């Protein structure tokens, strides 16, 4: 059965978000969750992730240089909408969580 291993991995991913409450500057982290808001003007999106019913929302800044995982092209914010599930590699810069790479996840 593959569930336990994947569960541990995803709990660790989600836990890394919670740990993000005390940001470690510059340290890369990974998140996977659902987009619940997109702010085109501000260049950011809101992502919900979490563990069980303990859910947390973070705002991710999308710099113009953010890439799409698996490719070298830049990801425009218009590619994303509420309800999309995404996997994000990001890092803290000051009080902002900055996206490095982002990809849509298609549930299996």
């Amino acid at each position: 059965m593959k569930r336990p291993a994947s569960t541990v991995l995803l709990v660790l991913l989600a836990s890394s978000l919670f740990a993000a409450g005390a940001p470690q500057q510059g340290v890369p982290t990974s998140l996977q969750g659902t987009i619940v808001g997109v702010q085109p003007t501000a260049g950011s999106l809101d992502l919900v992730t979490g563990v069980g019913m303990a859910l947390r929302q973070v705002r991710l800044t999308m710099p113009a240089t953010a890439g799409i995982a698996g490719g070298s092209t830049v990801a425009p914010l218009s590619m994303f909408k509420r309800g999309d599930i995404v996997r994000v590699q990001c890092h803290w810069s000051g009080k902002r969580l900055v996206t490095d790479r982002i990809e849509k996840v298609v549930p299996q």
Partner: protein
Amino acid sequence: MSRVPLAVILALALLGSGCAKPTKPGDAISGLTAGQRDRFLRGRAVFDSVFTPETGLGPLFNANACGECHENPAAGGSGDEIEVHATATHVEGVCDPLAGEGGPVVQQQATPALKAALGIDQEPFPKSATARAHRSSLALFGRGLLDAVPDSELARYADPDDRNRDGISGRLNRFVDGRIGRFGRKAFVPTLAEFNAGAFAIEQGITNPSVPDEESIGGAPIPKGVDPTPDPEIDQTALDLASDFVRFLAPPSPARLTPQARRGRDLFARVGCASCHLPKLRTGNNPVRALSRQEFFAYSDLLIHDMGPDLADICLGLAGPSEFRTEPLIGLRFAEHFLHDGRAETLEGAIEQHGGEGSGARDRFRALPAKERESVIAFLKTL
């Protein structure tokens, strides 16, 4: 022959003849190793631990112990507590659990320090909510078995487009990261371990290695000095023990079937209840031998179904307001209230309130002669 081997032989003979001791509410599943049984007992102590603000409770919480809400008729059972959930359905149909405003669980109690700092007795209700839900505390018996059923088995039962045209179109719900869910009234949470870790945080305000930061206060940060206990407030050992206690809780043995109840069991299937309340599920391979490849009575498909507008409340994940997970009927005879918010006082009342995909079975139940309806209820009271 010495007395110990004789006792072993007698025990084996009893087991072999089908006279195994019935499992009571709060018992561990049979077949655990001595080490697993020890973890079950130590986990029960964590489950029953009463937290205070000094040991990490709050600052927002619903209960001060797992056992406060899961106590009847034994540790891991149900409770009288009703909690409040809130989410928002956006115009395009996307569900927002309002995590940025403290949702989806809106805590109903605050520690004295939080009350002194902000003057609140409970978490503020999210301003963006489009719906509110009440949730009763359900029994946790047999949840380890439900956890051990492979996703592929749930997917096999799903029929979202009702291709077999039986009026039942159960579908899978998914967590925010896309994994298949099964726990909670909307089948939102993928695994038991995650449900438990999240419950420590949102129900008691107890941070832990999986959820190491506190719930916000309606989305706002916790005022300084209100929660001085260092995070995480319980360690991985305590979290794992509590989770193992729940994982190893056995389904109570069903009561003996009387002829009337036997007839009711047949009618339960004939009127269509068993289309969603699937009698048996099977676990997959599992590191815990007692949970591995076990067939057990679940009376659920763990899928979400449209239950009609009268029961509708919040969305969660892919589940719309009227969609709920088929409630497992494990230990049903010990329940005192029924349906997701405890609104039904009797089993017959609960059946009467089934709508949507459940309306066909409900109508066929209604059409039964009174004696046959009583037989169905008699069967349900054996579970």
